[in-house]
């Protein structure tokens, strides 16, 4: 069961709509991300093609519904232990907030993300690299050449062309360093939420030395030692973010940063990472006006519309 915590107006690629923040019962940690649902004002319109994209990540699941390749609705929830169940919940979260859509509205659906492999409720699947590339191109425009996707359990640097086609990419999905789960795990040491840690890391007069361990497990040990020595939570958060950014920059430099530069995924919401990353590589990331976590699902929904049209001839 969900209850509305807040409701505000929000625009996604030029479409205005209502953004709901919902609290749901969950069993993981008390400060877990809330479920968010956005319903565009265009939801009542008649569309030729209604397409749906799921991005079932290790940590969160995004669902995007498009009408004729325009955003109509999206949701973001925590991924459960069953991927099919997570996808259904993501769609249900949207349908619960609007009467204009139902389960039969969708003409074509595509899943991406790590959970796509075990899913039998969609028409097709596409890799998340392709979907994030297309999603970044869709939201930020054809000037985007470099996309950094910082997901729950992976980190991807993608070079794309003006059509959003993948030219080259590098991915780390072996190690928690530089991923959302890593940041979340580190946050536990400080006893603060993943939303707070980024802003907190910026609240220092002077940057400390970065923690020396790339590994999150060892970085947490270093953090405990720093806290015991009397360092503030802000300083420790800063030390961790500085090390995390070094790690991310290394990956980015290997793929080569060419402007325009865009960040997608959950960590794009963390100013402690984004600001430092921009300072280090000397390029500003495009400033998104939408939830950066939905880029992959939006790419999938965009592809779904195209595939549907192709199928119809």
């Amino acid at each position: 069961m969900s209850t509305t915590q807040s409701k505000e107006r929000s625009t996604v690629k030029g479409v205005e709509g209502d953004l709901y923040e919902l609290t749901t019962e969950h069993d993981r940690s008390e400060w877990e991300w809330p479920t968010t649902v956005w319903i565009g004002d265009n939801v009542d319109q008649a569309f030729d093609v209604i397409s749906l994209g799921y991005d079932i990540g290790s940590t969160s699941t995004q669902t995007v519904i498009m009408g004729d390749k325009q955003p109509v609705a999206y949701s973001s929830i925590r991924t459960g232990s069953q991927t099919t169940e997570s996808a259904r919940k993501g769609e249900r979260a949207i349908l619960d907030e609007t009467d204009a859509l139902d389960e039969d509205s969708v003409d074509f659906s595509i899943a991406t993300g790590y959970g796509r492999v075990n899913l039998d409720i969609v028409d097709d699947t596409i890799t998340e690299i392709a979907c994030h590339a297309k999603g970044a191109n869709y939201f930020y425009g054809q000037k985007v050449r470099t996309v950094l996707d910082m997901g729950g359990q992976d980190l991807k640097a993608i070079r794309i062309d003006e059509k959003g086609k993948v030219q080259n990419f590098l991915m780390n999905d072996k190690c928690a360093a530089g991923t959302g789960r890593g940041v979340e795990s580190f946050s536990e040491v400080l006893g603060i939420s993943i939303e707070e840690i980024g802003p907190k890391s910026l609240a220092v007069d002077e940057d400390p030395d970065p923690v020396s361990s790339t590994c999150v497990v060892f970085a947490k040990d270093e953090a405990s030692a720093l806290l015991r020595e009397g360092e503030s939570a802000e300083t420790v958060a800063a030390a961790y973010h500085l090390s995390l950014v070094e790690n991310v920059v290394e990956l980015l430099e290997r793929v080569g940063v060419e402007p325009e530069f865009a960040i997608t995924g959950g960590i794009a919401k963390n100013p402690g990472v984004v600001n430092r990353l921009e300072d280090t590589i000397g390029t500003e990331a495009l400033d998104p006006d939408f939830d950066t976590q939905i880029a992959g699902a939006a790419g999938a929904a965009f592809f779904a519309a195209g595939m549907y049209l192709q199928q119809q001839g």
Partner: protein
Amino acid sequence: MTLIAGIDIGSDYTQAALVEDEELIGTGEVRTKFDLQDAVDRSLAAALEDAGTDREDVEQVIVTGDGRKTVEADDNVTQYKSIGLALNRVWPEGRTVLLMGAKNAAALKLDEEGNVMDFDENDKCAAGVGRFLSDLTRYLDMDLDELVEVTLEADDVVEELNTQCSVFAESEVISLIHENVPESHISRGVHEAIAERNSSLIRRVGIEPDVLLIGGVARNAAFVKALEEAIDTEVQVPDIAAFVPAYGTALTATAGQETDIETDFEPGEKKGGKFEQEISG
């Protein structure tokens, strides 16, 4: 009575060895906690009690391990040199040694005199060290003895763990439990994965019998078995496996005059980043 104390300050545990005429006469082990000097003192007190002797009889205290330069002692030495000295006494046939502690793993190559001829190490990634196994006991809600027992008795192993990182493993282990995969199969899978990772470390210095496992992880019989399978070679565990560096540290007091240890590597010296995150592209 002339006693020498060798103390190995580890990240989780500190071991002390009391040595008389190069013979080990007492050992002590304590949790390291925050204050390293306190850990040194407590471990020494435990070893003195074990040997039934007094602090006044100790002529020299020599330390090794993390923070060895920050505590009060008569001398400090590098861990690898100590290991070579100790093993040359307790297991002179040992040529390939895997040292596994809570936060580091190192493979050493020894010659017949205990000189360290080559080494490689991982102190970068928790997925290949003892810490992963202690985290696993937490994920599975067991103590270490239970973990070892169920792992040794496992009649099958979880097909493949997707995650290499011990942080990611937490959620994977939880989903496997939800899928009703027996804990023994999960634990064996994790043991095999850690053994596999360390077998690459060992292979880089070369596998030459006898192969020895020392350090705290040597107490985990399930890991010993997994390592034997991973390198397809018998692995020996000296009785004093956890105390080898401490014992060797005490031996350095007299070794200088008698043996010719030329190789003296500093842990952390090799910065190859062998356990750096793997990038697939």
